[in-house]
């Protein structure tokens, strides 16, 4: 197998993996907050989280490109203070992917928290346990299917993203060239067999991941009612 093919596939999964881990760390507190808050600002927070669902990826990519550009304020600040350049770099792709896949992690976790009976957390408080302990020991263990759904959908969605990556990452082999970009690239070069290799790999992997989730969720639900 071609070395650049393996490099591209590894990069694709590295990006998806890192994005998923970061989003899990953000998604649990954010999902909990959104499920509990009665603030009037809740609709605004929910809208911001959900924006990537409806926004064309190229729009998001365009604004991120402007924001991260070292010629503009925020990008220049990052460059100066952290010597971090987010355009056309792997780090930039991670940041963009985190923003772009946010709803895919937050929504399942938020609905997981909301679907739990309120008396579970109240019982834990009355037993003297803190909010943090309650989330960790009582709430999260009882919403495993929601967390798993969030992880898998986020991962799969990041593997499949194209527009944002193209806008902000460009097409640097080993740095920002992920599988979905490579397919476009190979088709443009009329290199159909390599394009097919990428396309089929993504197809097979996505199928396998989703099959795994549905099978696992089914067995989790079944074990609950047996």
């Amino acid at each position, binding site marked *: 197998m071609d070395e650049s093919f393996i490099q591209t596939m590894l990069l694709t999964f590295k990006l998806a993996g890192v994005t998923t881990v970061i989003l899990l760390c953000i998604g649990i507190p954010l999902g909990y907050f959104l499920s509990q808050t009665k603030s009037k600002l809740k609709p605004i927070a929910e809208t911001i989280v959900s924006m990537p669902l409806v926004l064309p990826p190229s729009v998001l990519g365009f604004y991120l490109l402007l924001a991260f550009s070292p010629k503009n304020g925020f990008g220049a600040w990052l460059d100066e203070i952290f010597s971090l350049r987010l355009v056309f770099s792997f780090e930039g792709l991670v940041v963009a992917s985190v923003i772009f896949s946010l709803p895919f992690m937050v929504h399942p976790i938020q609905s997981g928290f909301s679907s739990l*009976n309120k*008396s*579970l957390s*109240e*019982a*834990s*408080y*009355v*037993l*003297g*346990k*803190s909010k943090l302990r309650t989330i960790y*020991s*009582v709430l999260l*263990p*009882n919403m495993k299917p929601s967390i798993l759904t969030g992880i898998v959908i986020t991962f799969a969605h990041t593997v499949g993203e194209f527009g944002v990556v193209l806008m902000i990452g460009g097409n640097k082999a080993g740095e920002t060239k992920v599988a979905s970009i490579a397919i476009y690239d190979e088709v443009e070069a009329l290199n159909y067999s390599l394009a097919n290799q990428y396309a089929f790999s993504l197809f097979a992997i996505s199928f396998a991941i989703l099959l795994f989730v549905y099978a696992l969720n089914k067995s989790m639900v079944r074990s*609950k*009612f047996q």
Partner: protein
Amino acid sequence: MIQIDIIKPLHTSDGTIDLIVNKEIQNGDFLTLFGKSGSGKTTLLRILAGLETPKSGKIIVDDVVWFDSEKKINLPPQKREVGLVFQDYALFPNMSVRKNLEFALKDKKDTNKVDEILEIMEIENLSQMKPEHLSGGQKQRVAVARSLMSSPKMLLLDEPLSALDSAMRLKLQDELHSIHQRFNITSILVSHDISEVFRLSNRVFKISLGQITDDGNPSEVFANQNISGKFKVVGEVLSIVKSDILYIVEVLAHNEIIKVTAVKSDIEALNIGDKILLSSKAFNPILTKI
């Protein structure tokens, strides 16, 4: 002693009403909050547990201020050290019965306490089971056991028996009674079952639309509804009390309590909770204008 003086607006289907409570409850009391649903019974229980905040007022328990709207004191549920049994039991589905009890421990190492409570509640054989495999009565026992783990000063019971069939209910009423005796724990029960009130409590608050309309022992509170002229009724024995040479049997029939005098031979075969037929061969109809 629990001193409550609070006001809390309730949003009911008939509009907003105020729950107004100004009472004192003695330590060791078994108090029942009796009333229709929506009258504010459960809200009062939740206010005591710290899960709801009154609009104004004070709650002082054994000279410790739990709530004072003027001084802006509101002790969180974690610090109130009460035991609360929810109507739906709220057992943690991810934990076995034993783990549910261990979770409630203040000191994690105190596993003897888990064994002790498992034994008292006669649920040792369930200790490794997950809550979803338990029957309603078993869940109720586990929920009571869990609420006792932290040796609370106060036990709050939110209609814990309402989902159970009558045989199981009688058995668990006895258990609640013996727990109350054994731990001498101030207990507050929400109920709309008159026989439960008689069997368990020494004091009743009758709550209607947010107001406590009657306060006293069960016989006093329900005394004015016990006149019945029915010739033949089926009922349940609530209590048998010796009074001089006679016995007074209180019988519950269709939510009314009838006091009947009986002689020793009448009551010999009777137990509390028995279903009986009450009839009168020659009776004096009592006329009351309503």
